């Protein structure tokens, strides 16, 4: 399956002519997005995320390299063929981009009209989709009468109308509050599961990635810094860019002089239980927690905790052994002390 990715991005580059010479918005991007996965692309503002996602459906023509969609090289297609291919790639946006003068129903019918589908069939299909996104009661409302979350659900229904193989989401939840964001993310997850559609999620928020993605690429200054499973990136970010995103608070820790510290990495092999508290009870010795950023994903613990060990060398050593015995990666760090 991985040798036949739904989207393959090959040596892709995008140069924009700028006021002071050429500007590389994307450089040497290589990515495989697998069938049926939810793939995240995360990066800071201006990293090139939107440009990358727009290159995937050729809204932006890459200046170097190419994109294969379902094995088809998009750079060799005629305009008409490209229009056709785009019908198998739905897209949703931060600002929803609904047609404001059309009803909800008519918005969902829109891509079907574009594809030349018979009106009656289109309405039927649109109504199915509105049921899927739970907006049947808003069928004849206008977008201006809906909340942000509802508008995004209309946009999702619209993007799914032509039965696409891929759904591209550019900051789809960035304009929504946390509760609404969760609702939309759960809907995307559900759509991925139920319809088997591959989803590409562009975001600058780590919590969006941890909530729904299987794999993630970190894009930093126009380049891919790191690609891997969400667990991998969460537990062992290798590059500085990845670390910045995974542990944004780490830099602000107050450094205490004198004693030994260690970093405990949770990589999902232990369950989400209070290990440190357990250790403190077992040893009857307190430790100082300097930094903690752990997440509970499917009942497994991910992330890291940095603790300051007790003065007593022997106890400190035994604590490290204890933690390693719990299947955790423990490393002594000097940075904190």
């Amino acid at each position, binding site marked *: 399956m991985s040798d036949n990715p739904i989207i393959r991005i090959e040596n892709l580059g995008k140069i924009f002519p700028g006021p002071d010479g050429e500007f590389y918005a994307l450089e040497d991007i290589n990515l495989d997005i697998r069938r049926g996965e939810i793939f995240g692309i995360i990066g800071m503002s201006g990293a090139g995320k939107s440009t990358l996602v727009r290159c995937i*459906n050729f*809204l932006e023509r890459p200046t170097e390299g190419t994109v294969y969609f379902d094995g088809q090289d998009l750079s060799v297609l005629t*305009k008409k063929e*490209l*229009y*056709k*291919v*785009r*019908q198998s*790639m*739905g*897209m949703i*946006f931060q*600002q929803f*981009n*609904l*047609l*404001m*003068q*059309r009803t909800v129903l008519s918005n969902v019918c*829109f*891509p079907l*009209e*574009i*594809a030349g589908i018979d009106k009656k069939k289109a309405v039927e299909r649109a109504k199915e989709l509105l049921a899927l996104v739970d907006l049947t009661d808003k069928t004849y409302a*206008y*977008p*201006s009468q809906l909340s942000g979350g509802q508008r995004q659900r209309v*946009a999702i229904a619209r993007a799914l109308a*032509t039965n696409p193989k891929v759904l*591209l989401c550019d900051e789809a939840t960035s304009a929504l509050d946390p509760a609404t964001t969760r609702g939309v993310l759960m809907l995307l997850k559900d759509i991925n599961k139920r319809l088997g559609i591959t989803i590409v999620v562009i975001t600058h928020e780590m919590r969006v990635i941890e909530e729904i993605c299987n794999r993630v690429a970190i894009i930093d200054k126009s380049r891919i810094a790191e690609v891997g499973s969400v667990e991998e990136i969460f537990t062992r970010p290798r590059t500085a860019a990845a670390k910045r995103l995974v542990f944004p608070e780490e830099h602000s820790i107050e450094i205490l002089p004198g004693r030994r510290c260690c970093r405990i990495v949770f990589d999902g092999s232990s369950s989400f239980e209070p290990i440190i508290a357990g250790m403190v009870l077992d040893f009857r010795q307190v430790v100082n927690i300097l930094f903690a950023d752990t997440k509970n994903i499917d009942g497994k613990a991910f992330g890291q905790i940095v603790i300051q060990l007790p003065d007593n060398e022997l106890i400190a050593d035994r604590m490290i052994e204890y933690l390693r015995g719990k299947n955790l990666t423990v490393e002594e760090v000097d940075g904190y002390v």
Partner: protein
Amino acid sequence: MFDPSVWTMLGQGLLESIYMTLVSTALAYLFGLPLGIALVITDKDGIHPKETFNWILGLIINLLRSVPFLILLIMVIPVTRAIVGTIIGTNATIVPLVIAAAPFIARLVESSLKEVDKGVIEAAQSMGASSMQIITRVLLPEARPSLIVGGAIAVTTILSYSALAGFVAGGGLGDIAIRYGYHRYQTDVMLITVVMLVVIVQVLQEMGTRLARLGDKRK
């Protein structure tokens, strides 16, 4: 107050003015609308950027718009004669009206279409919409309220131009106003024509505004 024949003449003038205005507006949109669309899509941020073409088109439109209407009226006399066969009367007036109004309408249409959110156009493109589909199914319908407001501006402007055309004996209320008010010093007749023009402008403007508001689903 007046001789019934004066009233008949005023009624006739009113009908002529309305006829000239409506026909000219329709014909001017026939040229102005495509030109406005062309300006928008060939703009450097448009769906078919063509900078040189856009620049030349913009230049021609500006040139036409900068010619004062009275001068244009006289300048196009040969054209009028070639098309209509005469240079007097309502049909003859329609020619300069259309030539003057089309570039103005092109700019009105351009500004209305530019109000359409770029994101919505991008969304349509992401669905595989062709440029033609974007024009007919996104740009024009989404800009409808603004286009209607523009339409009201266009029709009232053309009406006042048509009155000006009275100077070259173009028929309509303007023609009467000139003949009676200016040549015969019958200011009362002139005043009546002015009142009639004001009323038509008000009615058209109000209709346009209401129609635009009624059809706008944004709020």
